[in-house]
């Protein structure tokens, strides 16, 4: 009512008249009167619209000292929810309604149509005033307003979610003003229950059938969830097929009033209650498909509702199969596509989108022990440990590894490569004797060498000592089994130093080197004396002559008188070179001498071997 009043005010306002009568060219200049009137008109319109929308955020359009932009935003705030619905409604009306006439002329029919529309759209909202306002709007030329009002009402009704309305009394059987042959609350309830029961197992989320039914808001598509999509798709298919079958027409233009509203009241009664719901549903469904195929969810929802009634119910198994089939198709589609980067093996930063690793929760092991928290207690304990260790002198110093004693080559067993002198039995015998202790252990070759070396060195040292100092040093004891021939018996008691003393080691008879019987001169007889003297002379002579000859040979006298011979001799004597190196020269000399006849000296003659014979 308030709205009507407002509307009347609007229509009767001068501002509206002014605007209506104004020339278009005037708008270019933007005179202040026009703007003023425009503002006033818009205020009135806003208030008119505001009356019909329950959830208006602005009661009044504020234009005073407001920018055009701000005014527009206010209007937008109110009008935005209504725009989409308005568009649809307009489209529908343009298509279905054949004649558009003024409300006053065919107020009843149009109004009833409109009423039906409104009732259809909003069942549970139970708002007021829509149809009545529509019917009361008589004499108004602007059907826009009517439409707008109705549509705004519709939209408002759509936007409204479950807010309790004061007029809603029809739940408990009281006649609801919206109810008529087309819509029956009881039937609706029954349908809802039926739908609920059917969807109990599979689609419990589809509780908001009513609003889905009514509106086509895009936002509610997501609410249903993906599990409904497949069934809805199926239902949609089913429905569309059914539609084709039933109506035998895919074109929306060929759909008739009968399809939506049945054949009238008389014929309607014949149908079963389900048919009513069926009648209800296809209208919705067609409406949806006709108007906007973008709103798939609405269509789907409607379709699901449709299909539930039309097509015989599928068994749970079938539904499961379908569900699985859809899942399989989905999975297959995923498999064909390249995998997401998280599922690939080794992914470098270049292969994944930027900062995508931040979004994914990566889980990997950190093989790092958390660092120890250094507290006072920890430090105190460490210091205590250090002090104690220092006191005990237990420093964990790194010790050098003790080198193993390398067996010296002398300790290594030498392998004798010569044939062993002892027989096998002798070897075992010696071993047995050694073990039993009957004999001293035999020395190995190395030990023998050592002993030899020590004895040699001892001897050498003894000799050096005797040379270097005069004080008595006894001869070193050499354990020797051999008997030396010339060891004196009393050597140890000799007073004089060995270096000086002439004590011979030999006895006189050992020194004496003569032979035979020795007689003194006094003991000799004369003949013996003579014999000795003659012998002596002979000996002396022989010796003397050899000496002389030797002297002569060294310094030969040049006796020959021939000067050439002298010269030659001289040459031979004084020249260092001998002419007898060459055999030719030797023989030449011989030949020469052969002719001459060498004269032998008397002296030389004496030297003949026969002469020297004793």
């Amino acid at each position, binding site marked *: 009512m308030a709205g009507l009043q407002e509307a009347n005010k609007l229509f009767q306002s001068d501002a509206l008249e002014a605007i209506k009568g104004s020339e278009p060219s005037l708008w270019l200049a933007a005179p202040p009167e026009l703007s003023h009137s425009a503002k006033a008109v818009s205020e009135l319109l806003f208030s008119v619209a505001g009356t019909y929308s329950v959830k208006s955020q602005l009661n009044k359009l504020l234009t005073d000292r407001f920018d055009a932009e701000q005014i527009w935003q206010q209007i937008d705030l109110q009008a935005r929810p209504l725009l989409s619905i308005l568009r649809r409604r307009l489209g529908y009306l343009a298509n279905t309604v054949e004649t558009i006439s003024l409300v006053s002329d065919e107020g009843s029919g149009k109004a009833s149509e409109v009423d039906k529309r409104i009732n259809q759209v909003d069942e549970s909202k139970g708002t007021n005033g829509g149809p009545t306002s529509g019917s009361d709007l008589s004499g108004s030329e602007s059907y826009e307003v009517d439409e707008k009002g109705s549509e705004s009402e519709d939209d408002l009704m759509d936007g409204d979610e479950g807010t309790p309305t004061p007029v809603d009394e029809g739940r408990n059987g009281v006649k609801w003003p919206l109810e008529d042959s087309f819509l029956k609350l009881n039937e609706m309830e029954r349908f809802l229950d039926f739908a609920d029961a059917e969807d109990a197992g599979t689609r419990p989320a589809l509780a908001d059938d009513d609003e889905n039914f009514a509106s086509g808001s895009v936002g509610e598509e997501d609410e249903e969830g993906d599990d409904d999509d497949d069934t809805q798709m199926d239902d949609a298919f089913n429905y569309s097929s059914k539609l084709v079958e039933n109506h035998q027409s895919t074109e929306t233009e060929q759909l008739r009033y009968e399809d939506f509203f049945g054949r009238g009241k008389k014929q309607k009664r014949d149908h079963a209650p389900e048919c009513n719901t069926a009648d209800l549903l296809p209208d919705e469904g067609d409406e949806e498909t006709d108007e906007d195929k973008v709103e798939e969810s609405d269509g789907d929802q409607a379709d699901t509702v449709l299909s539930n009634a039309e097509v015989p119910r599928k068994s749970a198994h079938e539904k499961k199969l379908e569900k699985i089939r859809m899942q399989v198709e989905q999975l297959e589609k995923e498999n064909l596509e390249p995998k997401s980067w998280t599922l690939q093996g080794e992914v470098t930063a270049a292969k994944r989108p930027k900062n995508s690793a931040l979004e994914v929760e990566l889980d990997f092991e950190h093989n790092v022990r958390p660092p120890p928290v250094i507290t006072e207690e920890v430090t105190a304990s460490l210091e205590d440990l250090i002090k104690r260790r220092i006191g005990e002198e237990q420093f964990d110093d790194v010790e050098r590894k003790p080198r193993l004693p390398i067996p010296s080559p002398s300790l290594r*067993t030498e*392998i004798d490569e010569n044939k062993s002198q002892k027989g*096998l039995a002798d070897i075992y015998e010696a071993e047995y004797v050694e073990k039993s202790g009957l004999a001293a252990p035999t020395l190995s070759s190395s030990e023998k060498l050592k002993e030899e070396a020590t004895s040699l060195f001892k001897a050498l040292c003894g000799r050096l000592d005797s040379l270097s100092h005069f004080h008595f040093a006894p001869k070193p004891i050499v354990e020797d089994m051999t008997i030396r021939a010339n060891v004196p018996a009393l050597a140890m008691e000799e007073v004089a130093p060995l270096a000086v003393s002439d004590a011979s080691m030999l006895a006189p008879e050992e020194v004496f080197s003569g032979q035979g019987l020795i007689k003194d001169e006094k003991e000799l007889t004369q003949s013996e004396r003579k014999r000795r003297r003659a012998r002596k002379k002979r000996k002396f002579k022989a010796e003397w002559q050899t000496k002389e000859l030797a002297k002569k040979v060294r310094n030969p006298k040049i006796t020959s008188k021939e000067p050439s011979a002298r010269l030659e001799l001289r040459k031979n004597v004084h020249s260092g070179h001998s002419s007898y190196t060459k055999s030719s020269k030797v023989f030449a000399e011989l030949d020469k001498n052969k002719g001459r006849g060498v004269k032998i000296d008397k002296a030389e003659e004496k030297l003949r071997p026969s002469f020297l014979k004793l």
Partner: protein
Amino acid sequence: MASSRLVEDLDTEPMVVDNTSAAQEKAPLLPREGAAVLSIAEQPQDDDALVDPPKPNFAPLSAHQMQGGRFQYRKVSVPAHRYTPLKKHWMEIYTPIYEQMKIDIRMNLKSRKVELKTRRDTPDAGALQKCSDFVHAYILGFDVADAIALLRLDDLYVESFEIKDVKTLKGEHLSRAIGRLSGKGGKTKYAIENSTRTRIVIADIKIHILGSFGNIRVARDALCSLILGSPAGKVYSKLRTVTSRLAEK
């Protein structure tokens, strides 16, 4: 008379079983060589004093008696190439066998075998086998001084094997293997002998080793490794370790 003397003897002298020949000679009336005890009939019938019956006096059996009073023989055949060396060293072989082991030995020229026979007074039952082994060792090629160890020690053995048992070698390879075994001037062989206290005889393709069991094993391993081709230096180093270990023991 005799019986009274017997009684006297029985009463005064203590019953000592004296096995020496002197004792046996002293008491001729006492049973000899396991003869039966005096029968009760022969014993003095002295009913006055109860005398214990004489204890039996069993002298231990000699080796000859242990073999049932039979003489045992061994025959060792002599191949032709050992004939002359046997002749040369015959006295060295003969003397210890005949004098110390008390076994008769002779050379059967017709059959070309050395025959050994036990005597009545062979003290040791196993002497014959030992002598046979000794002669056999000499025939194989060992020196008398080495083979005589078999007589003196119990646990010496002679092991023989052929080169083909180790590895099949033919022709030049065989010759080379033999050369490797003995080494230059026999030094490898002597090295093995000296370090392992064994004696080795390499007779063409046969190899004989004389020594104690463990030493034979070591020597055999060394020889086998030489046959299989390892160089002498490697064998020496192995021998060194083994001998040092043996020396420690």
